[in-house]
């Protein structure tokens, strides 16, 4: 199908983009256009105006700051994130998600800011962001603010990023004693996550001190798996712990939280979530299997 008519503006600065959004009712930002344009062609979204920030300079930097965090510019592409040594070292889950995402053209075109602001429930990065307890730095007509991962995802294609706000960077706290990872089961049709599990764990040699586990793809909204986290925290690093924790994968989620579609029913997705949680834990922990 064809998109409906729309006006097109290109912003030369973040400030101008904020202004343009304010001036044009219902206008949408466009960065990599890999999330929005497909939905405009199917008629799922039809904004009357687009504000293109894809060419803005300086929004794609990936930097580590001394204060125990790294910053990833909103316009960093998935390919840049997948290739970044900084991200690989301090936020492995995000690097995994970026490198498993789509295919090379999609990774070269799509941006992390667009991905997280869009709130497509099949996306990979959300589970990584939740597990890493990252946050978004945004700028709007009322100035700047920070949105924590826990507050970001409100529903399918609904996020806490307001209509006139621009994500400028993703900030992720770092912890040298922690490990993280993201495991993806691809939907055979779309290539998006049918089930994606992000894991972040801080361990001393024997015990799991802190655990953060999150799901994407399987549920209508990306979410933390608190049942799994509760089971892990304070437990010994062992196969038994992993099995017991994975068994809790669905417990903190509503029965209707799971997606059902032509490829996989909710029941099957719930089953896979348990398996993939277990496998994601094995991926990052040095035990068994």
């Amino acid at each position, binding site marked *: *199908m064809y998109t409906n*008519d729309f006006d097109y503006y290109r912003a030369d600065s973040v400030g101008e983009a904020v202004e343009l959004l304010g001036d044009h009712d219902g206008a949408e930002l466009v960065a990599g256009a890999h999330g929005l344009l497909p939905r405009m062609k199917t008629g799922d979204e039809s904004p009357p105006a687009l504000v293109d920030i894809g060419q803005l300079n300086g929004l794609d930097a990936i930097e580590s700051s001394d204060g125990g965090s790294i910053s990833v510019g909103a316009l960093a592409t998935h390919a840049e994130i997948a290739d970044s040594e900084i991200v690989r070292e301090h936020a492995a889950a995000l690097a995994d998600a970026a490198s498993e995402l789509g295919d090379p053209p999609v990774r070269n075109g799509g941006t992390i800011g667009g991905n997280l602001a869009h709130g497509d429930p099949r996306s990979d990065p959300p589970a990584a962001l939740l597990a890493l307890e990252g946050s978004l730095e945004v700028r709007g007509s009322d100035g700047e603010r920070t949105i924590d991962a826990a507050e970001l995802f409100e529903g399918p294609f609904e996020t806490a990023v307001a209509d006139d706000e621009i994500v400028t960077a993703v900030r992720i706290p770092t912890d040298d004693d922690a490990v993280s990872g993201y495991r993806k089961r691809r939907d055979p*049709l779309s*290539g998006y996550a049918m089930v994606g599990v992000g894991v972040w764990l801080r361990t001393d040699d024997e015990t799991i001190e802190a655990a953060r586990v999150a799901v994407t793809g399987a549920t209508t909204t990306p979410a933390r798996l608190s049942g799994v986290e509760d089971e892990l925290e304070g437990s010994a690093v062992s196969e038994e712990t992993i099995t017991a924790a994975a068994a809790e994968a669905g417990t903190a989620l509503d029965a209707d939280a799971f997606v059902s579609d032509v*490829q996989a029913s909710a029941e099957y997705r719930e089953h*896979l979530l348990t398996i993939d949680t277990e496998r994601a834990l094995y991926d990052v922990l040095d035990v068994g299997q």
Partner: protein
Amino acid sequence: MSDADASGASDGDGSGAFGAAIERGEDVPLLTGSGEYTDDISLRGTTHLAIRRSDHAHARIESIDTSDAEAMEGVLAVFTGEDVVESGVPNTIPTAWDLPGLVQPQYRMLATDKVRHEGTPVAAVVAETRHAASDALEHIHVEYEELEHVTDPVDAVERDVPPVHDEAEDNVAFDFELGDADATDEAFADADRVASVDLRQPRLIPNAMEPRAALADWEEATGKLRLWMTSQNPHLHRMLLSAGTLGLPENKIQVIAPEVGGGFGSKIYHYPDEAVTAWCSMQLGRPVKWQATRSESYLTDCHGRDHVTTGEIALDDDGTIRGVRVETHAGLGAQLSQFGTATPSYLYATVLSGQYTIPAIHCRVVGAFTNTTPVDAYRGAGRAEGIYVIERLVDVAARELEMDPAELRRRNLVPPDEFPYESAAALVYDSGEYERAMDLALEHVDYEELRERQRELRDEGRYIGIGIGSFIESAGLSPSGLAGDLGAQAGGWESSIVRFDSTGSVTVLAGTADQGQGHRTTYAQVAAEELGVSVDDVTVVEGDTDRIPQGMGTYGSRSASVGGGSIARGAREVREKARRIAAHQLETSVDDIEFDDGEFHVAGAPDRSLHIQTIAHEAYLGHDLPEGMDPGLEETNFYDPENFTYPFGTHVAVVEVEPETGEIEIERYVAVDDCGEIINPMIVEGQVHGGIAQGIGAALYEGAAYDDDGHLRTRRMDEYVVPHATQLPDFETDNTVTPSPHNPIGVKGVGESATIAAAPTIVSAVADALEPFGVDHLDMPITPESVWRATGGDN
């Protein structure tokens, strides 16, 4: 360029052209973007057509208000079905295959009374731009009275549902039988064992890379219509448009198929959309272009398959097959498409004997109207469905007999000395060495060792499966007389012109129509071989009814065998005429002239010779020809084969299934194909690769579905997708060569073979892996979830 040296005799001659893995001449233009497709063509003043389609599966049209749309900027006209009726054109979309007792309801370009499937064309907008036309669609106001609908072919005839067409109250379009019912009953009564399977073969969406398109240009002054379109058979389209739809004589219609991006069957058919494009041009006197979107393709390109079947097989304890009995409900969709009746009847039931000696076969097919997109031939057409049934039956029987499935097949193969073999399903197989191909395939995977490994792995809780698909294909439907007896409204012949140009190059005009197969290369190889010229000296022209006098087109694996056969025969006649000229100029008798590498020479005096390209020049000079001979060097050939050809082979797949998740991993895929003589091994391999991909697609991924409202549920590429390269294994291909004894060049065809083979092979492999779970069959598409459920994971 009249001397032999400059003519190519020194660098390349024809000998060896046939059989060489020559690179495809068409690839550079296609891959670099200079190929011209229908949508690339623009005429001065071209307007654009968009078609308003019904959102309902079944409804009565109460009113259509076009005034808002007509008032929109850039909109030139909005037409409804009533406008087409009033124009007085014949306005039917005819079927091209009759069956006994067939109910043939009215099928119009634009609906007037009812819409019978989602996507039925109800109105047409012509505007100055594509976007203006598209935007106007939603401003056409159509009021419907919704009617109850049915999408399943069994429900359509067995449940009390309103008919799709009043003419067929029970929704039965035809009730077809093939084979001997009594003999089959007797065989079943006498046999030691009976095995059976209930299966569904889901609807498939063809997904050609280029969606359908048309550009029509009506010239009022001459009363001539030029129509560029995505056609697999321009002459057939010309014929069907002429009398049935537009009421123009054939010589006032020129159908041109420029580059066409894939078809897989979907571009054989005469659809309303292209006809409406032509009709709109006739109304407005301006060129009109219609380019389907991908979404329109999903809703309107004829779907494939849609069978619900019960199959039974009767055997003796030693594995001898005694009989096969099949009953199928075939969904035809809301209208009878061109070959929609032939595909589930003659093209299906006749292959149920597969590669096996089966004394008694009976098949009944109930063709059902449903409120769905019309169903017609899709790569493999009928043969794919039939081979799937017999191969599933053989596997299920092997399980029942506790016999190795390769061994059971082996015991029943038609032996080489039984050819020509007359099957109990009314075909006469031309030639085959089935065991040789099967052995080769099994050797590739080291079959015995693989079975051993399978046993060992099962002990470790790992499940690999070995699938076997042995198939035949009936390719190149012919002869025409037989096709006519069976109900075809068209012939089974093919036509071509082979022409030496006056300077020694060769032009081949072929009645088939390439959509990516590589005819420009393979046909050049056939002609070059016969004429002793270089492949580069031959140019192949297809796809234009004004340039190519006649033709039937490209479908049913017919081009290499029937089209190539015609070209070879024509080239031979050209060569013989050239030989007579050579004899005359060399002052000897025709019998004394030998032909070798393009050179005619006098037997015993090799230096007294003339090259065929020199003779071509002489033929057009006409100065010195034998007494009574007409000048020129070209022949028109019509070739009506005496029989189908019968490609065959065995494919073997090795899969591993993870019961915990249901994931299926294809470890190996081996294809041994026998398509007779091979014109170009690289192109054959390409056909096999594409065919396997589509067969795997059917087995594991595809399958169109309708929801409870009668809407297509799989309407986009992320809801229904052909497999990605990353989802396919490496293909290991090999060939045996058993020439067709009746084909002029010994070829059998390979266009559909691998699609036919791959689906049963993969299903066989998955079922084999799941033997420990007591699973002997799973319906396509076998998703991980269906495996997980079948192995009891959900309990």
